Protein backbone atom coordinates (compact mmCIF):
# COMPACT_ATOMS: atom_id res chain seq x y z
CA UNK A 1 0.00 0.00 0.00
CA UNK A 2 1.21 3.47 -0.80
CA UNK A 3 1.63 5.91 2.05
CA UNK A 4 -0.73 8.32 0.36
CA UNK A 5 -4.13 6.71 0.86
CA UNK A 6 -6.41 9.45 -0.42
CA UNK A 7 -5.72 12.21 -2.91
CA UNK A 8 -8.43 14.66 -3.86
CA UNK A 9 -7.18 16.60 -6.86
CA UNK A 10 -8.86 19.83 -7.94
CA UNK A 11 -12.32 18.43 -7.40
CA UNK A 12 -15.47 20.35 -8.15
CA UNK A 13 -19.01 19.09 -7.84
CA UNK A 14 -22.09 20.62 -9.36
CA UNK A 15 -25.64 19.66 -8.53
CA UNK A 16 -27.44 20.96 -11.59
CA UNK A 17 -26.33 24.57 -11.82
CA UNK A 18 -25.41 24.79 -8.12
CA UNK A 19 -21.71 24.38 -7.37
CA UNK A 20 -21.35 22.54 -4.07
CA UNK A 21 -17.58 22.07 -4.25
CA UNK A 22 -15.02 24.30 -5.90
CA UNK A 23 -11.56 23.10 -6.83
CA UNK A 24 -10.83 21.26 -3.60
CA UNK A 25 -7.46 19.48 -3.24
CA UNK A 26 -5.90 17.63 -0.33
CA UNK A 27 -4.04 14.44 0.44
CA UNK A 28 -4.34 12.08 3.36
CA UNK A 29 -1.57 9.73 4.42
CA UNK A 30 -1.88 6.40 6.14
CA UNK A 31 -2.43 6.71 9.89
CA UNK A 32 -3.84 10.21 9.70
CA UNK A 33 -7.16 11.07 11.31
CA UNK A 34 -8.55 14.04 9.46
CA UNK A 35 -11.45 16.07 10.78
CA UNK A 36 -13.71 17.83 8.29
CA UNK A 37 -15.17 21.01 9.67
CA UNK A 38 -17.50 23.47 8.08
CA UNK A 39 -20.89 25.08 8.52
CA UNK A 40 -24.05 23.37 7.28
CA UNK A 41 -24.06 23.00 3.52
CA UNK A 42 -20.31 23.57 3.27
CA UNK A 43 -19.69 20.47 1.17
CA UNK A 44 -18.31 17.99 3.71
CA UNK A 45 -20.75 15.23 2.83
CA UNK A 46 -20.30 15.94 -0.86
CA UNK A 47 -16.53 15.52 -0.55
CA UNK A 48 -17.03 12.21 1.23
CA UNK A 49 -19.38 11.01 -1.49
CA UNK A 50 -16.69 11.70 -4.07
CA UNK A 51 -14.11 9.68 -2.13
CA UNK A 52 -16.45 6.75 -1.57
CA UNK A 53 -17.36 6.72 -5.26
CA UNK A 54 -21.04 7.35 -4.63
CA UNK A 55 -20.87 10.47 -6.78
CA UNK A 56 -18.46 11.36 -9.56
CA UNK A 57 -16.77 14.77 -9.46
CA UNK A 58 -17.80 17.28 -12.14
CA UNK A 59 -14.13 18.17 -12.52
CA UNK A 60 -10.90 16.87 -11.03
CA UNK A 61 -10.26 13.38 -9.75
CA UNK A 62 -9.96 11.34 -6.60
CA UNK A 63 -7.29 8.71 -6.01
CA UNK A 64 -7.68 6.04 -3.37
CA UNK A 65 -4.51 4.11 -2.67
CA UNK A 66 -3.18 5.39 -5.97
CA UNK A 67 -6.16 4.19 -8.00
CA UNK A 68 -8.56 6.63 -9.58
CA UNK A 69 -12.14 6.45 -8.35
CA UNK A 70 -14.17 6.20 -11.52
CA UNK A 71 -17.31 4.41 -12.57
CA UNK A 72 -18.23 1.43 -10.44
CA UNK A 73 -14.77 1.50 -8.87
CA UNK A 74 -15.19 -1.74 -6.95
CA UNK A 75 -11.45 -1.89 -6.22
CA UNK A 76 -11.36 1.41 -4.31
CA UNK A 77 -14.72 0.76 -2.66
CA UNK A 78 -13.33 -2.46 -1.23
CA UNK A 79 -10.67 -0.45 0.64
CA UNK A 80 -13.16 1.90 2.25
CA UNK A 81 -15.58 1.54 5.14
CA UNK A 82 -18.26 4.23 5.00
CA UNK A 83 -20.71 5.52 7.53
CA UNK A 84 -23.02 7.85 5.60
CA UNK A 85 -24.65 10.84 7.29
CA UNK A 86 -27.60 9.82 9.52
CA UNK A 87 -26.63 6.14 9.19
CA UNK A 88 -29.14 5.00 6.57
CA UNK A 89 -29.90 1.34 7.32
CA UNK A 90 -32.51 -1.25 6.35
CA UNK A 91 -35.17 -0.66 8.99
CA UNK A 92 -36.98 -3.94 8.37
CA UNK A 93 -33.87 -6.08 8.91
CA UNK A 94 -32.65 -7.41 12.23
CA UNK A 95 -29.23 -6.14 13.34
CA UNK A 96 -27.71 -9.61 13.19
CA UNK A 97 -29.18 -10.31 9.77
CA UNK A 98 -27.95 -6.94 8.51
CA UNK A 99 -24.39 -7.58 9.66
CA UNK A 100 -24.43 -10.92 7.84
CA UNK A 101 -25.65 -9.15 4.74
CA UNK A 102 -22.90 -6.51 5.01
CA UNK A 103 -20.26 -9.20 5.59
CA UNK A 104 -21.37 -11.13 2.52
CA UNK A 105 -21.30 -8.02 0.33
CA UNK A 106 -17.78 -7.45 1.65
CA UNK A 107 -16.93 -10.96 0.47
CA UNK A 108 -16.40 -12.39 3.93
CA UNK A 109 -17.59 -15.89 4.57
CA UNK A 110 -17.28 -18.85 6.90
CA UNK A 111 -15.35 -18.61 10.19
CA UNK A 112 -13.61 -15.42 9.07
CA UNK A 113 -16.95 -13.65 8.66
CA UNK A 114 -18.11 -14.98 12.00
CA UNK A 115 -14.97 -13.76 13.70
CA UNK A 116 -15.15 -10.30 12.18
CA UNK A 117 -18.81 -10.09 13.10
CA UNK A 118 -18.08 -10.97 16.71
CA UNK A 119 -15.28 -8.41 16.82
CA UNK A 120 -17.34 -5.51 15.49
CA UNK A 121 -20.30 -6.43 17.70
CA UNK A 122 -18.03 -6.21 20.71
CA UNK A 123 -16.14 -3.13 19.60
CA UNK A 124 -19.35 -1.22 18.82
CA UNK A 125 -21.16 -2.49 21.89
CA UNK A 126 -24.23 -3.81 20.13
CA UNK A 127 -24.48 -7.25 21.77
CA UNK A 128 -27.78 -6.29 23.34
CA UNK A 129 -29.62 -5.32 20.16
CA UNK A 130 -28.66 -8.12 17.75
CA UNK A 131 -32.18 -9.54 17.66
CA UNK A 132 -33.92 -6.19 17.23
CA UNK A 133 -35.31 -4.73 14.05
CA UNK A 134 -33.06 -1.84 13.02
CA UNK A 135 -36.12 0.37 12.64
CA UNK A 136 -36.78 0.15 16.38
CA UNK A 137 -33.28 1.18 17.50
CA UNK A 138 -32.48 4.47 19.21
CA UNK A 139 -30.41 6.94 17.22
CA UNK A 140 -27.23 6.11 19.11
CA UNK A 141 -27.58 2.40 18.48
CA UNK A 142 -28.36 3.02 14.82
CA UNK A 143 -25.15 4.98 14.62
CA UNK A 144 -23.25 2.10 16.22
CA UNK A 145 -24.73 -0.44 13.82
CA UNK A 146 -23.76 1.89 10.98
CA UNK A 147 -20.22 1.99 12.33
CA UNK A 148 -20.18 -1.80 12.76
CA UNK A 149 -21.00 -2.34 9.08
CA UNK A 150 -18.35 0.20 8.11
CA UNK A 151 -15.55 -1.67 9.87
CA UNK A 152 -16.74 -5.24 9.33
CA UNK A 153 -14.17 -5.90 6.59
CA UNK A 154 -11.37 -4.20 8.54
CA UNK A 155 -10.79 -1.62 5.78
CA UNK A 156 -7.61 0.46 5.62
CA UNK A 157 -9.70 3.60 5.07
CA UNK A 158 -12.67 4.83 7.06
CA UNK A 159 -14.96 7.65 5.99
CA UNK A 160 -17.30 8.64 8.80
CA UNK A 161 -19.91 11.34 8.26
CA UNK A 162 -20.78 12.78 11.68
CA UNK A 163 -20.06 9.54 13.55
CA UNK A 164 -20.91 10.85 17.03
CA UNK A 165 -24.16 12.58 16.16
CA UNK A 166 -26.97 11.25 18.30
CA UNK A 167 -24.72 9.56 20.84
CA UNK A 168 -24.87 10.23 24.56
CA UNK A 169 -21.77 11.70 26.27
CA UNK A 170 -20.49 8.29 27.43
CA UNK A 171 -20.90 6.81 23.98
CA UNK A 172 -19.18 9.83 22.46
CA UNK A 173 -16.14 9.21 24.66
CA UNK A 174 -16.19 5.50 23.71
CA UNK A 175 -16.52 6.14 20.00
CA UNK A 176 -13.78 8.78 20.03
CA UNK A 177 -11.48 6.37 21.80
CA UNK A 178 -12.39 3.72 19.24
CA UNK A 179 -11.68 6.10 16.37
CA UNK A 180 -8.30 7.03 17.87
CA UNK A 181 -7.48 3.35 18.26
CA UNK A 182 -8.54 2.50 14.70
CA UNK A 183 -6.57 5.51 13.52
CA UNK A 184 -3.31 3.96 14.66
CA UNK A 185 -3.26 1.80 11.57
CA UNK A 186 -6.02 3.16 9.39
CA UNK A 187 -6.66 6.33 7.48
CA UNK A 188 -9.73 8.08 8.78
CA UNK A 189 -11.73 11.05 7.61
CA UNK A 190 -14.56 12.16 9.85
CA UNK A 191 -16.83 15.14 9.75
CA UNK A 192 -18.26 16.82 12.79
CA UNK A 193 -19.81 19.99 14.13
CA UNK A 194 -18.27 19.47 17.56
CA UNK A 195 -15.03 21.39 17.61
CA UNK A 196 -13.49 19.88 20.75
CA UNK A 197 -14.04 16.52 19.07
CA UNK A 198 -11.56 17.47 16.39
CA UNK A 199 -9.01 18.49 19.00
CA UNK A 200 -9.64 15.28 20.90
CA UNK A 201 -9.47 12.83 18.00
CA UNK A 202 -7.87 14.28 14.91
CA UNK A 203 -4.30 15.00 14.04
CA UNK A 204 -5.32 17.18 11.16
CA UNK A 205 -8.20 19.55 10.38
CA UNK A 206 -9.66 20.50 7.04
CA UNK A 207 -12.10 23.36 7.10
CA UNK A 208 -14.46 23.73 4.17
CA UNK A 209 -16.70 26.69 3.67
CA UNK A 210 -19.16 27.14 0.81
CA UNK A 211 -17.43 24.47 -1.20
CA UNK A 212 -13.97 25.96 -0.78
CA UNK A 213 -11.16 24.54 1.32
CA UNK A 214 -10.18 27.35 3.67
CA UNK A 215 -7.78 25.62 6.06
CA UNK A 216 -5.77 22.40 6.18
CA UNK A 217 -3.44 21.99 9.13
CA UNK A 218 -2.95 20.36 12.52
CA UNK A 219 -5.31 21.56 15.24
CA UNK A 220 -2.28 22.95 17.13
CA UNK A 221 -1.08 25.00 14.20
CA UNK A 222 -4.53 26.35 13.53
CA UNK A 223 -4.80 27.39 17.15
CA UNK A 224 -1.32 28.91 17.03
CA UNK A 225 -2.19 30.88 13.94
CA UNK A 226 -5.05 32.49 15.80
CA UNK A 227 -3.04 33.18 18.94
CA UNK A 228 -3.33 30.97 21.96
CA UNK A 229 -6.57 30.62 23.84
CA UNK A 230 -8.24 28.31 26.31
CA UNK A 231 -7.31 28.27 29.97
CA UNK A 232 -3.98 29.95 30.59
CA UNK A 233 -2.40 28.72 33.83
CA UNK A 234 0.89 29.74 35.46
CA UNK A 235 2.40 27.55 38.18
CA UNK A 236 5.36 27.71 40.49
CA UNK A 237 6.76 25.32 43.10
CA UNK A 238 6.88 25.79 46.85
CA UNK A 239 9.29 28.60 47.77
CA UNK A 240 8.59 30.43 44.52
CA UNK A 241 10.95 28.37 42.37
CA UNK A 242 10.37 26.85 38.94
CA UNK A 243 8.17 23.75 39.23
CA UNK A 244 8.98 20.24 37.98
CA UNK A 245 7.52 20.51 34.50
CA UNK A 246 6.80 16.80 34.07
CA UNK A 247 4.99 16.65 37.35
CA UNK A 248 2.96 19.80 36.71
CA UNK A 249 1.95 18.45 33.30
CA UNK A 250 0.81 15.18 34.86
CA UNK A 251 -1.26 16.95 37.49
CA UNK A 252 -2.99 19.10 34.89
CA UNK A 253 -3.57 16.16 32.56
CA UNK A 254 -5.22 14.17 35.35
CA UNK A 255 -8.00 16.74 35.74
CA UNK A 256 -11.52 15.73 34.74
CA UNK A 257 -12.43 16.45 31.10
CA UNK A 258 -8.95 17.44 29.96
CA UNK A 259 -8.44 17.29 26.20
CA UNK A 260 -4.99 18.70 25.91
CA UNK A 261 -2.31 20.47 27.94
CA UNK A 262 0.34 22.44 26.09
CA UNK A 263 3.41 23.60 28.03
CA UNK A 264 4.32 27.18 27.15
CA UNK A 265 7.16 29.46 28.27
CA UNK A 266 8.90 29.65 31.65
CA UNK A 267 9.14 33.13 33.11
CA UNK A 268 10.04 34.59 36.51
CA UNK A 269 10.21 31.16 38.16
CA UNK A 270 6.76 30.21 36.88
CA UNK A 271 5.73 27.83 34.10
CA UNK A 272 2.85 28.66 31.79
CA UNK A 273 0.47 26.06 30.41
CA UNK A 274 -2.40 26.19 27.96
CA UNK A 275 -5.22 23.86 28.94
CA UNK A 276 -8.07 22.72 26.72
CA UNK A 277 -10.90 20.77 28.25
CA UNK A 278 -14.41 19.58 27.45
CA UNK A 279 -15.70 20.95 30.76
CA UNK A 280 -14.68 23.64 33.18
CA UNK A 281 -11.71 22.35 35.24
CA UNK A 282 -11.41 25.36 37.55
CA UNK A 283 -13.48 23.79 40.38
CA UNK A 284 -10.98 20.92 40.72
CA UNK A 285 -7.86 22.79 39.79
CA UNK A 286 -6.97 24.32 43.13
CA UNK A 287 -7.41 21.11 45.11
CA UNK A 288 -5.20 19.19 42.70
CA UNK A 289 -2.52 21.87 42.84
CA UNK A 290 -2.48 22.08 46.63
CA UNK A 291 -2.26 18.33 46.95
CA UNK A 292 0.82 18.41 44.72
CA UNK A 293 2.53 21.40 46.28
CA UNK A 294 2.06 23.64 43.28
CA UNK A 295 1.18 27.31 43.54
CA UNK A 296 -1.24 28.98 41.17
CA UNK A 297 0.32 32.23 39.99
CA UNK A 298 -2.03 33.09 37.18
CA UNK A 299 -5.34 31.88 35.74
CA UNK A 300 -7.24 33.33 32.81
CA UNK A 301 -9.96 31.98 30.59
CA UNK A 302 -10.06 32.46 26.87
CA UNK A 303 -12.59 31.28 24.32
CA UNK A 304 -12.07 27.80 22.85
CA UNK A 305 -9.46 28.17 20.20
CA UNK A 306 -10.63 26.08 17.31
CA UNK A 307 -14.08 27.48 17.69
CA UNK A 308 -12.60 30.91 17.22
CA UNK A 309 -10.49 29.78 14.31
CA UNK A 310 -13.51 28.16 12.77
CA UNK A 311 -15.66 31.23 13.14
CA UNK A 312 -12.92 33.42 11.87
CA UNK A 313 -12.27 31.32 8.79
CA UNK A 314 -15.86 30.60 7.86
CA UNK A 315 -17.37 33.98 8.68
CA UNK A 316 -14.60 35.98 7.05
CA UNK A 317 -15.14 34.03 3.90
CA UNK A 318 -18.81 34.90 3.98
CA UNK A 319 -18.14 38.55 4.64
CA UNK A 320 -15.68 38.83 1.79
CA UNK A 321 -18.13 37.04 -0.49
CA UNK A 322 -20.79 39.60 0.34
CA UNK A 323 -18.40 42.37 -0.40
CA UNK A 324 -17.66 40.87 -3.78
CA UNK A 325 -21.32 40.83 -4.61
CA UNK A 326 -21.68 44.52 -4.01
Amino acid at each position, binding site marked *: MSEEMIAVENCSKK*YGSFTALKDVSFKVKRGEIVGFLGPNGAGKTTTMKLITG*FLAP*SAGRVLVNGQEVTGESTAT*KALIGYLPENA*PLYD*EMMVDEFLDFAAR*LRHLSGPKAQKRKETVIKVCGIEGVLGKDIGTLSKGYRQRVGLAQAIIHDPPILILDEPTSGLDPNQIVDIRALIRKLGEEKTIILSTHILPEVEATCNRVIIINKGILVADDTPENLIEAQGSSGLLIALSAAGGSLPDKEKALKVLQSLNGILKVTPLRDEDNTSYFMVHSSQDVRPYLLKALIENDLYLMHLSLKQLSLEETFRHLTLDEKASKEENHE
Partner: protein
Amino acid sequence: MNNIITIATKEFRGFFHSPVAYIVLTVFLLTTGWLFFSSFFLIGEASLRNFFALMPLMLVIFSPAVTMRLLAEERKSGTFELIATMPLKDRDIILGKYLSACALLICGLFFTVPYALSVATIGVIDFGPVLSGYVGTLALILALAAIGILASALAKNQISALILALALGFTLYLVGAFTFFLPESLGSFLAYISLTTHFENFTRGIIDTKDIIYYLSIAFLALYLGVLTLKARRNN
Protein backbone atom coordinates in the same frame (compact mmCIF):
# COMPACT_ATOMS: atom_id res chain seq x y z
CA MET B 1 -22.62 -13.94 -9.08
CA ASN B 2 -22.34 -14.20 -5.29
CA ASN B 3 -23.23 -10.54 -4.97
CA ILE B 4 -26.34 -11.04 -7.06
CA ILE B 5 -27.46 -13.95 -4.92
CA THR B 6 -26.75 -12.05 -1.69
CA ILE B 7 -28.92 -9.16 -2.83
CA ALA B 8 -31.62 -11.40 -4.28
CA THR B 9 -31.86 -13.41 -1.06
CA LYS B 10 -32.06 -10.29 1.07
CA GLU B 11 -34.79 -8.79 -1.11
CA PHE B 12 -36.74 -12.02 -1.33
CA ARG B 13 -36.81 -12.27 2.46
CA GLY B 14 -37.66 -8.59 2.56
CA PHE B 15 -40.89 -9.24 0.66
CA PHE B 16 -42.09 -11.25 3.62
CA HIS B 17 -41.04 -8.62 6.18
CA SER B 18 -43.82 -6.42 4.87
CA PRO B 19 -47.42 -7.32 4.06
CA VAL B 20 -46.80 -6.56 0.37
CA ALA B 21 -45.82 -10.09 -0.62
CA TYR B 22 -48.74 -11.68 1.20
CA ILE B 23 -51.23 -9.20 -0.22
CA VAL B 24 -49.90 -9.50 -3.76
CA LEU B 25 -49.83 -13.30 -3.67
CA THR B 26 -53.27 -13.60 -2.11
CA VAL B 27 -54.95 -11.13 -4.40
CA PHE B 28 -53.21 -12.66 -7.42
CA LEU B 29 -54.35 -16.17 -6.54
CA LEU B 30 -57.87 -15.09 -5.65
CA THR B 31 -58.33 -13.05 -8.82
CA THR B 32 -56.87 -15.58 -11.19
CA GLY B 33 -58.70 -18.38 -9.36
CA TRP B 34 -62.02 -16.65 -9.47
CA LEU B 35 -61.70 -15.59 -13.12
CA PHE B 36 -60.46 -19.03 -14.01
CA PHE B 37 -63.13 -21.08 -12.28
CA SER B 38 -66.00 -18.82 -13.29
CA SER B 39 -65.05 -19.01 -16.96
CA PHE B 40 -64.23 -22.69 -16.62
CA PHE B 41 -67.67 -23.58 -15.34
CA LEU B 42 -69.40 -21.25 -17.81
CA ILE B 43 -67.66 -22.64 -20.86
CA GLY B 44 -67.33 -26.05 -19.36
CA GLU B 45 -64.30 -27.36 -21.11
CA ALA B 46 -61.35 -29.03 -19.46
CA SER B 47 -58.68 -26.57 -20.63
CA LEU B 48 -56.61 -23.83 -19.08
CA ARG B 49 -56.76 -21.64 -22.15
CA ASN B 50 -58.90 -18.98 -20.57
CA PHE B 51 -56.78 -19.04 -17.50
CA PHE B 52 -53.58 -18.37 -19.43
CA ALA B 53 -55.32 -15.77 -21.56
CA LEU B 54 -55.68 -13.75 -18.37
CA MET B 55 -52.03 -13.85 -17.50
CA PRO B 56 -50.76 -10.86 -19.49
CA LEU B 57 -53.30 -8.53 -17.86
CA MET B 58 -52.81 -10.02 -14.40
CA LEU B 59 -49.05 -9.70 -14.55
CA VAL B 60 -49.14 -6.20 -16.03
CA ILE B 61 -51.06 -5.25 -12.91
CA PHE B 62 -49.32 -7.37 -10.26
CA SER B 63 -45.64 -7.24 -11.13
CA PRO B 64 -45.33 -3.47 -10.52
CA ALA B 65 -46.64 -4.07 -6.99
CA VAL B 66 -43.77 -6.49 -6.44
CA THR B 67 -41.01 -4.40 -8.00
CA MET B 68 -42.00 -0.85 -7.04
CA ARG B 69 -40.07 -0.54 -3.79
CA LEU B 70 -36.96 -2.47 -4.77
CA LEU B 71 -34.85 0.51 -5.88
CA ALA B 72 -37.08 3.54 -5.39
CA GLU B 73 -37.40 2.93 -1.66
CA GLU B 74 -33.64 2.60 -1.24
CA ARG B 75 -33.20 5.93 -2.89
CA LYS B 76 -35.83 7.55 -0.71
CA SER B 77 -34.52 6.15 2.57
CA GLY B 78 -30.87 6.76 1.72
CA THR B 79 -29.85 3.11 1.97
CA PHE B 80 -28.95 3.24 -1.68
CA GLU B 81 -25.80 5.06 -0.58
CA LEU B 82 -24.97 2.05 1.55
CA ILE B 83 -25.10 -0.58 -1.20
CA ALA B 84 -23.82 1.78 -3.88
CA THR B 85 -20.59 2.22 -1.88
CA MET B 86 -20.11 -1.53 -1.37
CA PRO B 87 -17.74 -3.17 -3.87
CA LEU B 88 -20.60 -4.08 -6.22
CA LYS B 89 -21.16 -3.61 -9.90
CA ASP B 90 -24.28 -1.72 -10.92
CA ARG B 91 -25.51 -4.84 -12.65
CA ASP B 92 -25.16 -6.86 -9.43
CA ILE B 93 -27.64 -4.52 -7.79
CA ILE B 94 -30.07 -4.52 -10.71
CA LEU B 95 -29.89 -8.27 -11.30
CA GLY B 96 -30.15 -9.15 -7.62
CA LYS B 97 -33.31 -7.11 -7.23
CA TYR B 98 -34.64 -8.46 -10.52
CA LEU B 99 -34.09 -12.07 -9.49
CA SER B 100 -35.93 -11.56 -6.22
CA ALA B 101 -38.95 -10.11 -8.04
CA CYS B 102 -38.95 -12.93 -10.57
CA ALA B 103 -38.71 -15.45 -7.74
CA LEU B 104 -41.74 -14.04 -5.94
CA LEU B 105 -43.83 -13.92 -9.11
CA ILE B 106 -42.79 -17.46 -10.00
CA CYS B 107 -43.90 -18.53 -6.52
CA GLY B 108 -47.29 -17.02 -7.28
CA LEU B 109 -47.38 -18.89 -10.56
CA PHE B 110 -46.38 -22.10 -8.84
CA PHE B 111 -49.38 -21.81 -6.54
CA THR B 112 -51.69 -21.91 -9.60
CA VAL B 113 -50.56 -25.46 -10.43
CA PRO B 114 -53.42 -26.84 -8.29
CA TYR B 115 -55.84 -25.10 -10.68
CA ALA B 116 -54.43 -27.13 -13.53
CA LEU B 117 -54.53 -30.30 -11.48
CA SER B 118 -58.12 -29.70 -10.41
CA VAL B 119 -59.12 -29.30 -14.04
CA ALA B 120 -57.37 -32.56 -14.79
CA THR B 121 -59.42 -34.38 -12.19
CA ILE B 122 -62.68 -33.12 -13.70
CA GLY B 123 -62.03 -33.91 -17.33
CA VAL B 124 -59.42 -35.18 -19.72
CA ILE B 125 -56.80 -32.46 -20.11
CA ASP B 126 -54.28 -31.92 -22.88
CA PHE B 127 -51.04 -31.14 -21.06
CA GLY B 128 -49.33 -29.64 -24.13
CA PRO B 129 -51.08 -26.27 -23.94
CA VAL B 130 -50.70 -26.28 -20.15
CA LEU B 131 -46.96 -26.63 -20.49
CA SER B 132 -46.72 -23.98 -23.20
CA GLY B 133 -48.96 -21.72 -21.14
CA TYR B 134 -46.62 -21.99 -18.19
CA VAL B 135 -43.58 -21.38 -20.37
CA GLY B 136 -45.25 -18.30 -21.84
CA THR B 137 -46.20 -16.98 -18.41
CA LEU B 138 -42.65 -17.46 -17.23
CA ALA B 139 -41.37 -15.48 -20.21
CA LEU B 140 -43.94 -12.81 -19.43
CA ILE B 141 -42.76 -12.62 -15.82
CA LEU B 142 -39.15 -12.18 -16.93
CA ALA B 143 -40.16 -9.26 -19.16
CA LEU B 144 -42.55 -7.51 -16.79
CA ALA B 145 -40.34 -7.82 -13.72
CA ALA B 146 -37.54 -6.17 -15.72
CA ILE B 147 -39.84 -3.32 -16.71
CA GLY B 148 -40.81 -2.92 -13.06
CA ILE B 149 -37.15 -2.79 -12.02
CA LEU B 150 -36.43 -0.13 -14.61
CA ALA B 151 -39.38 1.93 -13.35
CA SER B 152 -38.18 1.53 -9.77
CA ALA B 153 -34.67 2.62 -10.76
CA LEU B 154 -36.02 5.73 -12.48
CA ALA B 155 -38.54 6.78 -9.85
CA LYS B 156 -37.94 8.83 -6.71
CA ASN B 157 -40.44 6.91 -4.58
CA GLN B 158 -42.41 3.70 -4.78
CA ILE B 159 -45.70 5.26 -5.81
CA SER B 160 -44.13 6.88 -8.88
CA ALA B 161 -42.40 3.56 -9.56
CA LEU B 162 -45.77 1.81 -9.44
CA ILE B 163 -47.42 4.31 -11.75
CA LEU B 164 -44.53 4.31 -14.21
CA ALA B 165 -44.40 0.51 -14.33
CA LEU B 166 -48.18 0.29 -14.84
CA ALA B 167 -47.96 2.88 -17.61
CA LEU B 168 -45.14 1.02 -19.39
CA GLY B 169 -46.86 -2.34 -18.93
CA PHE B 170 -50.25 -1.18 -20.13
CA THR B 171 -48.71 0.52 -23.13
CA LEU B 172 -47.08 -2.72 -24.22
CA TYR B 173 -50.27 -4.58 -23.34
CA LEU B 174 -52.60 -2.33 -25.32
CA VAL B 175 -50.57 -1.39 -28.42
CA GLY B 176 -51.63 -4.58 -30.13
CA ALA B 177 -55.30 -3.65 -29.82
CA PHE B 178 -55.03 -0.51 -31.95
CA THR B 179 -53.35 -1.99 -34.98
CA PHE B 180 -56.43 -2.30 -37.20
CA PHE B 181 -56.97 1.41 -37.83
CA LEU B 182 -53.33 2.21 -38.37
CA PRO B 183 -51.30 1.99 -41.57
CA GLU B 184 -50.08 -1.51 -42.33
CA SER B 185 -46.39 -0.98 -41.51
CA LEU B 186 -46.98 0.82 -38.24
CA GLY B 187 -49.69 -1.67 -37.33
CA SER B 188 -47.45 -4.67 -37.77
CA PHE B 189 -44.69 -2.96 -35.85
CA LEU B 190 -47.05 -2.31 -32.92
CA ALA B 191 -48.30 -5.87 -33.15
CA TYR B 192 -44.71 -6.97 -32.93
CA ILE B 193 -43.94 -5.05 -29.77
CA SER B 194 -47.25 -5.99 -28.12
CA LEU B 195 -47.14 -8.23 -25.08
CA THR B 196 -50.44 -9.88 -25.99
CA THR B 197 -49.77 -10.79 -29.63
CA HIS B 198 -46.74 -12.77 -28.58
CA PHE B 199 -48.68 -14.55 -25.91
CA GLU B 200 -51.34 -15.99 -28.25
CA ASN B 201 -49.15 -18.83 -29.48
CA PHE B 202 -48.47 -19.97 -25.95
CA THR B 203 -52.19 -20.18 -25.09
CA ARG B 204 -52.69 -22.23 -28.25
CA GLY B 205 -50.07 -24.74 -27.19
CA ILE B 206 -47.27 -23.53 -29.42
CA ILE B 207 -43.83 -22.65 -28.05
CA ASP B 208 -42.19 -20.45 -30.67
CA THR B 209 -38.61 -19.30 -30.02
CA LYS B 210 -39.48 -15.98 -31.70
CA ASP B 211 -41.94 -15.24 -28.92
CA ILE B 212 -39.47 -16.25 -26.26
CA ILE B 213 -36.80 -14.08 -27.84
CA TYR B 214 -39.26 -11.18 -27.83
CA TYR B 215 -39.85 -11.42 -24.07
CA LEU B 216 -36.18 -11.95 -23.31
CA SER B 217 -35.27 -8.93 -25.43
CA ILE B 218 -37.70 -6.77 -23.49
CA ALA B 219 -36.18 -8.06 -20.25
CA PHE B 220 -32.64 -7.45 -21.44
CA LEU B 221 -33.38 -3.96 -22.71
CA ALA B 222 -35.17 -2.90 -19.53
CA LEU B 223 -32.42 -4.26 -17.28
CA TYR B 224 -29.75 -2.62 -19.39
CA LEU B 225 -31.53 0.72 -19.14
CA GLY B 226 -31.78 0.12 -15.40
CA VAL B 227 -28.01 -0.31 -15.16
CA LEU B 228 -27.50 2.87 -17.22
CA THR B 229 -29.83 4.70 -14.82
CA LEU B 230 -27.65 3.78 -11.86
CA LYS B 231 -24.52 4.82 -13.76
CA ALA B 232 -26.07 8.15 -14.68
CA ARG B 233 -27.03 8.79 -11.06
CA ARG B 234 -23.38 9.04 -10.05
CA ASN B 235 -23.05 12.09 -12.27
CA ASN B 236 -26.23 13.46 -10.77
